[in-house]
């Protein structure tokens, strides 16, 4: 039987107060807060086409291979984790100049749409965690 799995795509956009080149470099620098490699328990990162990454956070391993690295406009890599159920998903990040700023668009596609991914408990914890964070009373929640 030909079984097809339903997938979803997540798109997130932000305007970043820096030039595309600075934002591009910061996105690949593990020291910059907010990028995927920041605050890792263990990280192997080789951000070149066909370079791999291994990112361990809270005991959850993530793997991927860079497929496009075009400074300052675009980064694409695959992304596999427990949450993708072993499926190879794709993360594409683009950086476009807008005046002094950069419009950054991240698209994560091919994510298996499962009940676990939409877990009520996880979501609830997320909301409880972000509120203290806004007031400097807690550490940022990581996955």
């Amino acid at each position, binding site marked *: 039987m030909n079984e097809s799995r339903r997938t979803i795509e997540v798109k997130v956009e*932000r305007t970043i107060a820096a030039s595309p080149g600075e934002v591009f470099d910061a996105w690949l620098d593990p020291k910059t807060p907010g990028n995927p490699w920041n605050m890792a328990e263990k990280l192997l990162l080789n951000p070149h086409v066909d370079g791999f990454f291994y990112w361990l956070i809270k005991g959850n391993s993530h793997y991927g291979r860079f497929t496009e690295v075009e400074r300052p406009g675009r980064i694409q890599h695959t992304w596999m984790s427990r949450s993708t159920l072993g499926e190879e998903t794709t993360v594409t990040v683009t950086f476009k100049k807008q005046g002094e700023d950069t419009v950054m668009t991240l698209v994560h596609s091919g994510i298996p749409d499962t009940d676990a991914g*939409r877990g009520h408990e996880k979501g609830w914890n997320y909301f409880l965690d972000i509120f203290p964070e806004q007031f400097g009373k807690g550490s940022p929640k990581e996955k």
Partner: protein
Amino acid sequence: MDHLTNVLTAISHPTRRAIIGQLAIGPARFLDVAKPHDTALNAVTKHLKMLERAGLIERQKQGREVLISFRGEPLREVAGWVHEYERFWNERLDQFEKHFKQKRKKEKKR
């Protein structure tokens, strides 16, 4: 608007999220809620109305005072609707954006 839309609209504004953060610590009077925000009192009233419409806060009369408290239940609805990767990337990019905002602020002060 359906209820989920009301909740999503209510949490879409940073001031309203900050108010929820305050009230998540404990109930407060109107002026205490308004105090940390650099905005007019009638704007705070409008924010509270939107939070109330979403069911995220409730007002209780205690003697001569009215206490405003947080109700978390509507957030469960949103949490079940949003995929974990949506939350993950939004949270990451929020931190990333904040980092650069602070950096630019420091640079302009110099």
